Every structure is written in C-alpha cells, then in structure tokens.
C-alpha cells in the first residue's frame, strides 16, 4: 500500500493555512443539538433555499423534508446541483431571495463561506451532509453562520479547537527593531530586552512546534474520506422531532439506507445498526395509530439480496445481481453451469425461475428466502450474504415491493441517460418517483436496463481482459462505445459499477489483486473521462477511501486539465489527451 504522506507538499493544506491566524471562533462548535430549537425555529417565517446534491440519499431527504415543510407551512425553494460550480451559480442567483439556506449532501467537506464569497452575517447555512470528514472551518466557524445538522460519531475525531486555531505571536525580529533606539544604553533595559527576547523566542519556538503538530493533525484528519449516516435518517429524526413523521417518511429513509448499503457507503454492521433504529420507528408509528387497510405497511424481514426479482424472474435477477455474478463467475460457461447446478440443488425447476416472479407457484415463492439461506448456498456456493435484513412494504392487496428495488428504480431515474432531460428534471422526477403509490411507473424498467448495462460492462472487462497492472494500481479502461447512453457518468451511480468491476475483476484475475487500489476510467464525453478511485476491498466492506486526497493533490498539479467539481472526491474528470500525464502523476505520487 502506498503512503500519501510522502507526496504532500503542503499544497492541499492551503485553505486551512490561511486561516491559522484568524481569531479563534468564539462559539466552540456549530452542531444542531435540538432539531426544533436549533433548526426549525430558525427557519420558521423565512423562506428556505434548499440546494441539494443529485443522489439517491438527497432525493429521499428532500422528500422527507419538503413533506415536513409543507405541513409546517414553511416556504421553500428547491434547487438541485451536480457540483461545486453549479452550487455557487445557484446560490448567486437565489441568495437575494432569502437568508436561510439548507445544503443537502453538499458543502460539508469544503469551506462553504469561502466558496460562496463570504456572505453577510445574517445569512445562515444549514448543512446536512453525509460526506466525511467535515471541513474544519465549517465546524469551527467564527461567525456562527454555518450550522451542521449531524450527531458526531465516535470515529469522527475532529481536532480540538485550540489545536487548530491560535493567535500567532508577534514576529520577534520586527519588535527588536522597534525597541532598539529607545532602550539602547540602559543597562537594566538590556537585561529586560534580553529577557523579553528569550521569552519571545520561546514563544516562537512553541508556536512552530504547534504549527507542525497542527499540520500533522489536519493531515490525519483529512487523509481518509468516508460516509457517515445517510442524511435521510436525520431528515426522519427532524420530522419525528416535530411529531410529523409518518410511514412514508420512514419509507424514504429506508430507501436511502438501502442505497448506502448497495453502493457500499456503509459497512454492513452499520447498516444493521441503523436498520434496527428504523425498525423502532416503524413499530412506534404502527402502534400509535390504527391503520386502515389500504395504507402503507412496512415490515423488517429477511429478504433476498437479489436485484429487482419481484419485478423480473428470479433467474434474470440472479444473472444480473453483482454479488451473485461475481461470486459464481456467471460470465463464463462454467459459472453458468454452477448457477444452474445451485438451482437444481435447491430444487427450483428452471421453468419456474425463468418465468415472472409474480407467476411462480406460491409455494416456491414462500420458500425462496429459506432456500437461499440454506447450508448448500452458504457453503458450496460461498454466498452467505444472499439473504439480508431488509424492508418490505405493501399497500392493501397490491403486490409487495422491497426497498432494494425502489432504491434501484430511483437511481435509474436519476441517472437515466436521456439527453432530452436536464439533470434537475431527472432529480425532480426521481423525487416524484419515490412516491410509494406509483414508484413502479418507469423506474423499474429503467433499473433493469441499468443492471443489464452494468453486466455488459463487466462481461466486456473480463472477456477483453481490460485490467492492467500499473505500479501498485490496477487500471481498468472502459471502452467508449456506449458513451451516449451510459448510466454511469456521475458519482451517484458510479459505485454500483465500480465496486462490481472490482469484485468481478478480482474473481476473474489474480488473488493478489485483492490488496490493490483500483482506478477505473469511464468515458464521459468527447473531451473528458471519469477517473474513479476504488480502495481495496470496496465490494466486501465499505471503508475509508484515500483517493480524494490523492486526486486533490493531482488537481493541484494538473490544474485546468482536471475538473474536480463533484462533491464525492473519489471521482474526477480528466481530459482525454492528458490521460498519460494523469497516470504518470498518480504513479509518481504512489512511489
């Protein structure tokens, strides 16, 4: 594994460096401790500008919060943006309209006040962001304008305030000049001066060691990027704090939680932990009111980790779910046989699994979960995670649907490569599509298309042996034959493809590849490609990612040839012609 420590030349620290000498903030931290007091009551009576990132979690959060604001009668303006530039554009356009601004899944990792051109003091910014680590200057801001809606978790070691901010002692050499003339010959003064001088020198010394320590602290703090709790869970808690939570907001939170699991943003233990909190909400709400028959009911239960199987056939679903595909290597003849063998072992006739799930015999459908969690699957086929704790919803007597499918449908709506729709339009469509009563309308079919596309990419990578060992990295260069209808051009969807490619690549390639970081290059348009950094083992366990820091370094060196506009640092746009420069820099940094 390479060490980033060697490659840092102080460049990435620039922002914090400037702020060392500013007056330490008076208020220690700006976290929302009480949702009603610190958040809602500060926006009541104002119009709220909501600027949101375009990912599934943001869709869910927006869904919950706008429902809340509607019942509370809080006026809002909802804008979505895909990156930093757009965030700034939107803010500049709208900032005259209101003093209150809510940033969803954006802005937490950058110095917001600086980006938005140091807005006047009456403007307040609420940040609800799952990107970590948080920017220190957002956390400790002198003017108290930035408020972070979050509960710190134990692994977030934000440095103490006096470790980062301290007034710089007066420069010793300058002062010497000042005093030289006045006290030149006075003997007492000599002593006095000497004493002061040493004192100053000691202070100076202390300060320099402090600065070194600070640099180190900030470095370790910022070295790894990761994700914390999905924002939608905070949204749910805010709604709960206002006693306005209902089943549908819980459902939105669940979809977002599932998104975190599918896209590998949260490790499984965390997922289970949050899932059980959500389950508590479900129990509380369903106990509180007598529910009519045709309302939304959600149950936490063991379900298959198979994508879209309720809307497809089990066979198709098995053949496209990344986990199954790469574990059984179904891209090969051998793997295919293995899959069929497994079905035979379980006693599932092909004629049954190949037809639509809805038409399968009821007995088989009821036994599916039990079958796939049996010893045979776990031991012989090494698929222990094929059954997971998930949420299944139903309305009245309509067919059940599960959170996994809704998540994929939302993602597909969001990332749909339709040139006629703007990104904002797709975002709004996705918010509408989350509605439990009509989510099936288009999202599901698009999700199938999306899953087929992922599988094609993987198949191509394996067949054409696209993985190259370059230094400590593994490079995958995807072909640009599908540039125009690619679902995976933005960070919201890329992890699905990237993690799958990594897992499949490892399964098809060498054992040692497991320990290497991966770099996947996805064609973006005529001019740029997306470089995606995937940390080792991303498929099995969500972990901290070192690439954002590496990419920041590269951005510092390559300047205009690299566009680092997204809120997720592990993906950047690089000019096609500069591919070689980019690769060389990356290698140089890793040495």
């Amino acid at each position, binding site marked *: 594994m390479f060490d980033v420590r060697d490659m840092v030349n102080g460049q990435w620290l620039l922002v914090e460096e400037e702020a060392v000498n500013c007056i330490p903030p008076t208020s220690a931290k700006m976290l929302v401790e009480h949702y009603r007091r610190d958040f809602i009551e500060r926006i009541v009576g104002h119009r709220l500008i909501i600027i949101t990132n375009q990912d599934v979690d943001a869709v869910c959060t927006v869904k919950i919060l706008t429902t809340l604001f509607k019942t509370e009668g*809080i006026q809002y303006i909802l804008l979505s943006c895909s990156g930093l530039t757009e965030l700034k554009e939107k803010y500049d356009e709208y900032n*005259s309209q209101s003093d209150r601004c809510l940033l969803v899944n954006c802005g937490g990792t950058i110095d917001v006040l600086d980006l938005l051109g140091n807005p006047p003091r009456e403007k307040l910014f609420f940040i609800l962001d799952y990107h970590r680590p948080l920017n220190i200057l957002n956390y400790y801001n002198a003017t108290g304008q930035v408020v972070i809606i979050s509960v710190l978790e134990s692994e977030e070691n934000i440095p103490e305030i006096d470790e980062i901010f301290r007034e710089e002692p007066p420069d010793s050499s300058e002062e010497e000049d000042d005093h030289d003339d006045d006290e030149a010959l006075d003997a007492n003064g000599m002593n006095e001066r000497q004493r002061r001088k040493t004192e100053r020198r000691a202070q100076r010394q202390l300060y320099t060691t402090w600065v070194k320590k600070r640099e180190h602290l900030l470095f370790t703090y910022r070295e790894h990027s990761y994700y914390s709790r999905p924002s939608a869970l905070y949204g749910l808690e805010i709604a709960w704090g206002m006693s306005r939570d209902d089943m549908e907001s819980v459902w939105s939170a669940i979809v977002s939680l599932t998104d975190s699991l599918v896209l590998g943003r949260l490790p499984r233990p965390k997922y289970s932990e949050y899932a059980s909190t959500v389950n508590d909400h479900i129990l509380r709400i369903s106990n509180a009111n007598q529910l009519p028959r045709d309302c939304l009911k959600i149950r936490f239960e063991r379900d298959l980790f198979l994508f879209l199987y309720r809307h497809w056939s089990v066979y198709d679903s098995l053949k496209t779910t990344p986990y199954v595909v790469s574990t059984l290597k179904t891209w090969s003849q051998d793997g295919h046989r293995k899959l069929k063998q497994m079905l035979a072992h379980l006693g599932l006739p092909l004629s049954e699994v190949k037809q639509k799930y809805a038409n399968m015999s009821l007995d088989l459908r009821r036994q599916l979960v039990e079958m796939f969690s049996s010893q045979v699957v776990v031991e012989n086929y090494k698929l222990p995670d094929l059954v997971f704790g998930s949420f299944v919803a139903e309305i009245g007597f309509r067919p059940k649907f599960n959170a996994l499918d809704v998540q994929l449908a939302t993602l597909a709506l969001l990332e749909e490569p339709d040139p006629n729709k703007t990104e*904002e339009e797709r975002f709004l469509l996705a918010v*509408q599509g989350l509605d439990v009563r009509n989510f099936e309308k288009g999202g599901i079919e698009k999700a199938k298309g999306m899953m087929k596309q992922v599988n094609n990419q993987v198949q191509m990578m394996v067949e054409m042996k696209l993985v190259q060992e370059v230094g400590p990295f593994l490079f995958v260069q995807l072909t640009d034959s599908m540039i125009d209808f690619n679902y995976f051009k933005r960070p919201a969807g890329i992890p699905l493809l990237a993690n799958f490619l990594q897992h499949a690549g490892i399964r098809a390639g060498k054992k040692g590849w497991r320990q290497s970081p991966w770099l996947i290059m996805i064609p973006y348009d005529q001019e740029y490609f997306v470089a995606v950094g995937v940390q080792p083992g991303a498929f099995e366990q969500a972990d901290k990612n070192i690439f954002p820091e590496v990419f920041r370094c590269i951005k510092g060196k390559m300047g205009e040839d690299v566009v680092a506009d997204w809120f997720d640092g592990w993906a950047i746009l690089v000019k096609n012609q500069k591919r070689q420069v980019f690769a060389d820099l990356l290698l140089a940094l890793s040495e």
Partner: protein
Amino acid sequence: MSGMYGEIALELIKELDRHKGKLPPFQENELRQALDEMQILFEQNQRDVSMNIPGNPEFLAALHLRHAALERNKQCILAYLYTRLKVITDLRWDHGPVIPAEVRANMTEQEVQFFANYNKTLANYMGSLGENHGLDLTQDLKPPKTLMVEIRVLQDYGEFELEDGTSVLLKKDSVHFLPMSQCEALVQQKIVEVVQKQKSLHQK
C-alpha cells in the same frame, strides 16, 4: 305554423340544457317565433272572448287551452333569459371581470349591459367590505385545504413579486412552495405547474 303550441319555446330550453353551464349563441329567431306564436294565441283568445256570450261554455275549452299554451311559452322564455343571465353571473365569479372574447360573441347587447352593471355592483360591494381594504369575494369560493402549494417552474420567468413585497426568482426546473393565491395566475399562464398531489388509491 307547424307542430304543437309551445314547441319552439321548449326548443329554447332544450338548447340551454345541451350546453349546461355554458353560454350558447343567443337564439333570436326562435325567440321571435315563440313570441309571434304568443301574439297569435293572444289575438285568437281576444277574438273569441269578444264574440263570446257569457254563460255559453262552447268556447271555454279552446280558450283555456290557448291560455295554458300562452302561459307556458311565457314561462319558457323567461326561464331561457334568466338562465342565460345566471350563466353570465357565474362567469363573473369564475373568470373575473373580463369575459373571454368567444363568450362575449354569444351575448346580446342587453346581456353585455347587464354584465357591466353586475360587475359594477359587485365591485362596489366588495370595496365596501373589510374596513376600507376591500375583500375579494371571488377568491377561495371553496375553503382551500392548504394555503400553500408546491409548484414546479416550466419555463424561465424571472423575478415574480409576491403580495408581501418579497420576490421569487422563477427559473426552469426549480421547485417552490408558495402561497396558493399568488400562483393561480402563473398556473393559468402555464409558467408553472402544480406538483402532482398524491392520488388516493380509490381514484386509480
């Protein structure tokens, strides 16, 4: 003259019934025919009465019949005229003080006059309400479920000033949550659309 007495007058009523709640062109010919019919009936009755000797029941039945037809025609014509006026007053409440041109084409001169008068009366009355501020009675005819509405902007519009003095920038694909009363005009101009409310299961 063909057919039964009162047939033409009934035709007028049927015509209105076919265009329920709307304003069809004014049937001047039919109305005139109905009036002519009434004139004839009246003259016949007049003649019979003048010829008739009291106590002679010979003509009485015919007299009664004509009179009934006469009354019926009168009733129908009045109903026709009244219903049209009713439609016109309803228009005022739905569409505001200016009538669309295509509706205006179907109105007679007198009806236009009536509408102007009605307008004036209503405006005077609304102005006298609510302590010098006036009160727009035509708004919120049904109590609204919510005062605010979520709208999505369909085309770039620019700054839109609200009643409270603040303004909102309306750009394509932004979503706003604003007071309902201010948005109605925008919705009618197709600048914004109301974000679909949840439909209940039963409607589907």
